[in-house]
């Protein structure tokens, strides 16, 4: 098969990507940080660092810690706020030829609504990824993403405030991921992003204290891949929304596993730290796979491993 016959384009509920490979929020800055290592225009999408209404300084150090085949992070959503994002960081990406997905986070439903409204009409944003792994301060700090009613309501509110496709990013720290995914669908989600990090911790035996200043942090990297695959598989079986799948993807084979479990697109997070060109390499790897296997559209393999 010739390269020109291959179609790598994917449609994530209205977010059009020229290939399935996105870089995950919080692991790729605003794109510029990686421009020396890869051609950003070769990526399917750049999902920018989580943005809040007001600037946030983030958590005190220690913020990151390596664990077996993974890492914990407790960055605390450090970001310059939505205005600085729009005025100083987005223009760089708009000048590129790449799909940009904003990632928003809030502590109240009202904050999510205000963020969605602020992004409405902004040139260069193809969709909104909704980080719902945030504490809802009005509900005693319970994470939005762990309660189906809150998930439905926050998605619904954001949808009411934007014309952009909305893709909630599901937290894996729940008993029943399908229930959460269905709630997101009910709220009007256009696609699902999964999974965010798994809550974990580490202890320094010498100091007898938790390693992270925040005590708990999010586990990412190869260690979480089996969990991510299982959740995507389950959700693909029950829910009719396209999935952006990620969690520990380190190479093309990993990416193919995610697609076969039901992910239409895939996202690279921690892998960027190990190989700053990884997202690009995987995009090329997927093309090679298509060539070798006479596949002209990767949609053919999405969910192919799922036994309905």
């Amino acid at each position, binding site marked *: 098969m010739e390269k020109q016959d291959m179609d790598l384009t994917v449609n994530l509920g209205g977010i059009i990507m020229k290939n399935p490979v996105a870089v995950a929020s919080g*692991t790729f800055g605003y794109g510029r*940080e*990686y421009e020396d290592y890869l051609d950003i225009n070769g990526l399917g999408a750049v999902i920018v660092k989580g943005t809040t209404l007001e600037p946030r*300084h983030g958590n*005190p150090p220690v*913020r*990151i810690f390596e664990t077996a*085949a993974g890492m914990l992070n407790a*960055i605390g959503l450090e970001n310059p706020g939505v205005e600085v994002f729009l005025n100083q960081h987005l223009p760089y990406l708009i000048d590129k030829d790449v799909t940009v997905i904003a990632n928003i986070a809030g502590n109240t439903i009202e904050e999510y609504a205000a963020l969605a409204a602020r992004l409405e009409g902004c040139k260069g944003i193809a969709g909104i990824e909704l980080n719902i792994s945030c504490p809802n301060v009005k509900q005693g700090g319970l994470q939005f993403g762990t309660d189906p009613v809150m998930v439905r309501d926050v998605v619904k509110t954001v949808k009411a405030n934007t014309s952009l496709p909305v893709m909630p990013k599901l937290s894996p720290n729940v008993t029943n991921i399908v229930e959460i995914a269905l709630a997101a669908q009910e709220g009007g989600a256009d696609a699902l992003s999964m999974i965010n990090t798994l809550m974990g911790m580490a202890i320094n035996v010498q100091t007898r204290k938790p390693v992270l200043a925040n005590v708990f942090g999010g586990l990412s990297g190869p260690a979480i891949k089996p969990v991510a695959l299982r959740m995507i598989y389950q959700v693909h079986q029950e829910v009719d929304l396209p999935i952006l799948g990620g969690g520990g993807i380190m190479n093309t084979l990993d990416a193919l596993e995610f697609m076969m479990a039901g992910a239409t697109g895939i996202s690279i997070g921690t892998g960027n730290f190990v190989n700053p060109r990884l997202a690009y390499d995987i995009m090329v790897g997927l093309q090679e796979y298509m060539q070798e296997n006479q596949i002209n559209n990767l949609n053919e393999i999405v969910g192919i491993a799922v036994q309905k």
Partner: protein
Amino acid sequence: MPLQENGLVINHQQVAQDMYIMEFMAPAVARECQPGQFLHVRPGNTNDPLLRRPLSIYDADQEKGSISLLYRVVGAGTSLMTGIRENDYIDIVGPLGRGFTLPAPSKTALLVGGGVGIAPLVYLGRALIQRGCQVTAMMGAANENQLVAGDRLLEIGVPFLPVTMDGSRGYPGMVTDLLVPPVYPEEIVIYTCGPEPMMAKVAEYAQRYDIWGEVSLEEHMACGVGACLGCARRLKANDEAYVKVCKDGPVFNIMDVEF
């Protein structure tokens, strides 16, 4: 411009109980190396250890296209590195971060290193000598065997004052004991890298005599390029914002840091 390169290892030697020097050919990266910058090194091809390790540029030969690292074995990553042989490849990203500022050639530079913290000061010494500065290095270590960079410094032309805690070579005690009141503080610049208590003393000295200086800090890193915001540090206790050691540093002005 930093980049990823697979360096071809041409020399890898144990120089002390837990210390190694590795030299590899990486011409594209070597061309860009400034003193005080670091490389983000992948210790192996495995998922565990997973992340790259930040290591200072110990020396670089831009004509030859080679870079040397001096590292101490402290955990899984550096242990794995010790198994790398000549003719193997080592996956590096760099040079990264903001390096040292070079002073006017008329200045006298003091390099104060503790333990493996001497690493970035050696390549700095080379640049300072090339610039025509007077340079003196003071290096502290636990014992004689840990004083690893002396030969290289002498070869570069940097006189070197050894200090050992156990008195097995040079001055017995702490390297900062050698910091005597300067006669012409405005003629001196000071650079330091090593354990934080040592750097704190150097900073105190610089502040007291109003000497311009720079420190090289360490923080745990994931990306090394300013993207993950993992390597945050408050330079002063009352600062609200955090700097990112990988991008804003690792080198900072000595007056800007509270230890």
